[in-house]
């Protein structure tokens, strides 16, 4: 009788499961994604090979970073400079301090001095300088942006000639997958981001969507904290969220620089939550190496980003098939490999340097 009852209950449970769908997290899928991006990046050519020296012989490029006072942008600019040196064309890296006046002056200078292409690099919002972009294009200068929009969910506006975009969706998915894999599908995440920054939306949505789709029991709350208020609002927001819900086990800021305000919030609130984030910013990798709160960080070689941006720009200038997605792969840093990023960490170490040889070969330079 007991066996019969058990069988009946089991059958009932099975039927209920069949009706509602499996209520289990797809931990295996998450682990597979983690494994894929834990491997050292390999070089995949973004397009067919071409003779870069010949096509760039009479052309010059002008790069305007969001700001030079940010090591992130400085590292990308260095990638552009290195690429121009390898190919042998004139490239100017404009000095700016995150001021629209400086960006506008840069565009005007590029047009006046007859540059063939202007690249708004690393998050400089082209919308802010749309009239100047139109003017530049009317004068025959091509205008593009590197590492600003998402490659799949955001369209390049019509007022731009092109753009070399980043796969932010995959980055967001890796972050969410990590939390699922580490907790066996019991994630209670606090996701943070500054909504005013262009890549926040794809990163934020990818994290939240992946958690929802692959982990029915996982919980996630999102808080918007503008960049200028990370210190004054970010820390109290995280601290109070952890006090309100002590079961939060992951804090997922979409940009890792926020970690400096989240670590004290976690410590003061007496929480065990871990931080997982994106950007591979050196000081955050240092925090990972020296402490236990930053658990994983998705990075990308910024020198590679600069070279990939140069590649896309050269193709645009030379009339080749356009490349709108940077081929810079995401790479996972944890305690296991953080030493490879250097001590103190840098923006370029730890990723290997297959891209240098890869691009040289692609551009016909040996």
């Amino acid at each position: 009788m007991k066996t019969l009852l058990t069988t009946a209950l089991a059958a009932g449970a099975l039927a209920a499961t069949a009706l509602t769908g499996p209520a289990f997290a797809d931990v295996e899928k998450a682990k597979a994604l983690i494994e894929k991006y834990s491997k050292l990046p390999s070089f995949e050519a973004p397009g067919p090979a071409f003779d870069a020296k010949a096509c760039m012989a009479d052309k010059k490029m002008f790069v305007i970073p969001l700001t030079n006072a940010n090591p992130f942008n400085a590292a990308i600019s260095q990638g552009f400079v290195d690429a121009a040196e390898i190919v042998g064309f004139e490239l100017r890296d404009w000095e700016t301090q995150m001021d629209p006046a400086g960006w506008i002056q840069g565009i005007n200078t590029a047009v006046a001095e007859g540059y063939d292409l202007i690249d708004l690099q690393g998050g400089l919002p082209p919308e802010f300088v749309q009239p100047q972009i139109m003017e530049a294009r009317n004068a025959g200068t091509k205008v593009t942006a590197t590492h600003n929009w998402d490659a799949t969910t955001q369209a390049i506006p019509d007022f731009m000639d092109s753009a070399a975009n980043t796969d932010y969706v995959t980055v967001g998915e890796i972050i969410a997958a990590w939390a699922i894999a580490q907790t066996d599908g019991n994630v209670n995440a606090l996701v943070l981001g500054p909504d005013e920054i262009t890549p926040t939306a794809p990163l934020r949505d990818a994290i939240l969507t992946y958690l929802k789709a692959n982990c029915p029991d996982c919980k996630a709350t999102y808080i918007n904290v503008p960049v200028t208020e990370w210190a004054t609002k970010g820390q109290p927001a995280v601290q109070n969220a952890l006090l309100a819900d002590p079961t939060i086990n992951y804090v997922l800021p979409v940009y890792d620089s926020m970690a400096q305000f989240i670590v004290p919030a976690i410590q003061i609130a007496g929480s065990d939550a871990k931080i997982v984030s994106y950007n591979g910013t050196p000081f955050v990798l240092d925090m990972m190496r020296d402490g236990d709160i930053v658990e994983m960080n998705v990075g990308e070689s910024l020198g590679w980003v600069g070279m990939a941006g140069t590649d896309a720009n050269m193709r645009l200038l030379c009339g080749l098939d356009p490349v709108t997605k940077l081929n810079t792969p995401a790479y996972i840093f944890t305690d296991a490999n953080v030493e490879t990023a250097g001590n103190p960490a840098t923006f370029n170490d730890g990723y290997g340097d297959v891209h240098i040889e890869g691009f040289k070969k692609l551009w016909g330079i040996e």
Partner: protein
Amino acid sequence: MPAPTTTEGYEERIAALEAKLQVLEASVEQAEARRSWDWKDWLERYGLILAWIAIILVLGFFKPAQMFAWNSYASMLGSNAMVVVLTLALIIPLTTGDFDLSVASVMGLSSMLIAVLNVKMGYPIGGAIIIALVAGAVIGAINAFFILYFGVFSLIVTLGTGYFINGLILWVSNSGTIAGVSMDLVHAVILTRFLGIPIGFYYALILTVVLWYVFQHTALGRRMLFVGRGREVARLSGVNVNRVRAGALIASSVMAAFAGVLYTGMRGTADPSSALAFLLPAFAAAFLGSTAIYPGRFNAPGAFVAVFVLSTGIMGLNFLGVDSFVQNLFYGGGLVIAVAISQLIRGRKPMA
């Protein structure tokens, strides 16, 4: 405005002035005591504390589990230590009639100097802190030099020096954030707790008491108030106005540098820009605090309470899960309304 060159009779004149003032204050107090209990006066003094209690009760009605939990307050008190110290730094020159807009920059510079010296250059943390505090004193002296020697308005001088310091911070840090500051400092600021509250809070509390004592119970405090209320009158009475103003500016910068020590200790990290965002909350707390405890004067206990009234509101709004912009409405709107109500009670007399 030349300072009196002779000190002959100076202390006597000051002592006589203070004696007169004490007699005057005593007679006013007696007159006040003779009157029946003045509810307006009481409400003005303690209105902010009542508002604090009201905020806790109203928000507690919606979120009792969090708003009535000691742990929430312990965390909130511990994480605002540097804001209290920065606010105290502001009220010193405000009392002597000068604005110091460079305090947040000094806090940022001190924070970054500690990180650069300790992490990049291998200085012991104690030495790094002392250098940061000395740097604060030097900046205070530079502010005082330009304000007093050239007679430039303090707002302009400190706006300029603040901007200059921001450049210095970017230069010494190579525009980057530096992590890995000695854990000894982190332990000395947030990881050690007393009654559940991170110990940084008690440093802020001690400084508040010290400043309260200096302002309320010492001749120096009274001289500072004279200078702030009327420089010319103070000068004619024999107060060395320049010395008092210079001292206040230097003390302000050293205090701001100490806020930087706490800021670095809280995070174990220093970055080139985030400290600047604390200027507005500190000003808000300084002015809100001047409406309470000793209304009409910038005062340390008022500033202390004001910081925590504002952060209690923010904490409650966080618990309620309201959008980020509501916090701005609360901070900005709350400040203007609180100061306006206080003025209404005082019969719209101009604030000092």
